[in-house]
């Protein structure tokens, strides 16, 4: 086996301090994790945590906050106990606050538990919206399924996220899938993110069709008749991440040609002429 590793350096985001307020950072966390028992419907320990005034008012047994001193604040103590402690909040195995939420609450109390003034807190992580893998399949799913059925293969959604693309499946009858069949998938080419073509009758000619599947990420060609010449045609596949060439005739030339694919990090060449060189 041989892997070509292209290291993608993803910038690790440092925990920047950023201005926060009770309303933007503290209230939402308490609302989400505590309000079911300490809110409008239930007031366990006669404590409500769904407004600033209520938190300051405290519980039956007294205040739960000591402004400026997290260590002396009952509210802080309850959320920093070991999760299995009887006093731990939220109780009853309800989903606990995240470590980040706990930190934010600690900083807020340390800053004097202000109602509207800003305080310094670790920034919320930037949620990176994943780039869609393919166009929405939903409007074309029926069309794709019908086409696949007529051809004797399957096109199945990779997940319920409708921009995750379709997987081309041939395992039920690999010998029915050949070059001509791949060409006929053109109407749904942009939806295919993964193609399982191992043991099919696909050859270099078929890879010319595959090269037009612009959103393809994973391609399994194990034990097919493809060669280096065919594989070189895959250069346009900018999103290709892995390719399995196990048991094919592809040699060094094919593997070097694949260096053109910017995202390709995993190439398997067991049982090929490449494999002999480690």
């Amino acid at each position, binding site marked *: 086996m041989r892997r070509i590793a292209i290291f993608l350096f993803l910038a690790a985001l440092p925990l920047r301090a950023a201005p926060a307020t009770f309303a933007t950072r503290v209230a939402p966390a308490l609302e989400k994790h505590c309000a079911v028992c300490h809110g409008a419907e239930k007031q366990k320990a006669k404590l409500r945590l769904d407004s600033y005034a209520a938190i300051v008012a405290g519980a039956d047994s007294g205040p739960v906050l000591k402004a400026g001193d997290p260590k002396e604040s009952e509210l802080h103590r309850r959320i920093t106990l070991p999760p299995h402690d009887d006093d731990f909040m939220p109780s009853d*195995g309800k989903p606990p606050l995240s470590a980040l939420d706990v930190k934010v609450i600690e900083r807020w109390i340390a800053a004097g538990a202000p109602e509207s003034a800003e305080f310094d807190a670790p920034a919320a992580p930037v949620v990176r919206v994943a780039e869609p893998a393919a166009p929405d399949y939903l409007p074309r799913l029926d069309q794709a399924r019908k086409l696949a059925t007529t051809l004797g293969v399957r096109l199945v*959604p990779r997940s*319920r996220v409708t921009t995750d693309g379709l997987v081309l499946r041939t*395992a*039920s009858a690999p010998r029915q899938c050949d070059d001509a069949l791949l060409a006929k998938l053109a109407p749904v080419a942009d939806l295919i993110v993964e193609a*399982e073509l191992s043991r099919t009758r696909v050859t270099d000619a078929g890879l010319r069709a595959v090269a037009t599947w612009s959103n393809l990420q994973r391609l399994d060609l194990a034990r097919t008749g493809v060669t280096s010449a065919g594989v070189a045609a895959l250069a346009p596949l900018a999103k290709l991440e892995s390719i399995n060439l196990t048991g094919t005739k592809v040699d060094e030339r094919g593997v070097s040609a694949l260096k053109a694919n910017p995202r390709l990090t995993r190439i398997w060449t067991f049982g090929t002429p490449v494999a002999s060189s480690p």
Partner: protein
Amino acid sequence: MLDLPQVPAALKREWLELETRRHFLGRGSKALGWAGLATILGRSAPHLLASTAALPDQRPHFAPKAKRCIYLFMAGAPSQFETWDYKPKLAAMFDKDLPESVRGGQVLTGMTASQARLPVAPSFYKFAQMGKAGHWVSELFPHTGKVADDLCVIKSLHTEAINHEPAILSMTTGNMFPGKPSLGAWLAYGLGAINEELPTFVVMTSKMPVRTNVQALSNRLWSSGFLPPEYAAVSLRAGNEPVLYLQDPKGVNRDVRRAMIDGVNDLNRQLFERVGDPEINTRIAQYEMAFRMQTSVPDLTDFSDEPASTWELYGEKAKEPGTYAYNCLMARRLAERGVRFTQVFLRTWDQHTVLPERIKVMAGESDQPTAGLLTDLKRRGMLDDTLVIWGGEFGRTVYSQGTLRPDNYGRDHHPRCFSMWMAGAGTKPGISYGETDDFSYNIVKDPVHIRDFHATVLHQFGIDHNRLSVKFQGLDAKLTGVLPSRVIPELLA
């Protein structure tokens, strides 16, 4: 069991199990007594109570990392002390009494409860750090040690069950009472087949290397429970005929067979139209599957296309049908062809006595083929989306059961902690998760309940364990049950 005259008990039971509301309604009021009976017996066809909803939406909830799973089940419970939970401090404690503070009043099994002493038994086998990750690996696993950097070792599994049957059931079905769907059945139900010519869920039991302390394995462990029966595993037999009666008798060719199945299916369809019992469709599906397997299975079991390096990896024993080594190779061949879930059982890890000698035999049986399978999957590019799991059903005690000599001791059952490993399909390679105390008696860091383990496995298949459920007996029944459980993110790459 109620007494019905003139019907043999076994038949009665079978009939009652097949009885459904549809049959009952179809027959009118005369059936009232029967339906009542079926309900009283409780064990009646679950469809009486379950929804008979059509095929579930088999799209994963989110993009999966795993397409298939090979679960190497070490039945009988391998001791963590000689395998994955290295406890160097025990060496100095040979034959000392287990401190009461460690045991914490835990109830012991009948096998050691009456022992006068609970003397500490250190591992007879040595450990060394292996791989870049520096996993501590027992000298019993030299081959697995070489692939240690691919392993995600969990040392803090725990379970409620202290005896084999309920514990194995907990591992395989998430519940210690029989009748629940197995993990493989849930996956088959939730995701469907990759290859429709082969079963989605396959089980293989391996020849036993030792003949003492044998655990029974039954199809309870791979049943579909209250899911439709077609999601249960097909169990492959050792030998020339992995599936019985698959070969056509002399004089029956493919066309004759086809015509026969068409005829039977026709009759079954007529019955279905009359009574609407989904069980009938299952029967039709099974005839079709058997017909397809007539062509898919011979290719599967013909190892002549294997390169010489296969035997170097798995060992020569892999040529002998039914051995664990053979089953490991078969598991790879099934995975290659798109079988979703393959569970290989290797029994007789239950060393209550003579542990050093017997565990060596077991490790010898398991080590090379397991490591060979991992290496093979990796070189073929399949470890990327094949989840491999190795482990048993609970741990074993630090104290010796019976005789204690440095080279001869036994270990009793211990549910409070045990070790397993996973590899591939987006699990984090080269890490060790969870810690036990110096006696590997209690977990001191990062416990992983079986439910959490199951939730994590489903997660790798793109399934949210809270959302894969079916209505059964008034519950949204799911693999992880109703108690809290969570995916363990630290185990994932």
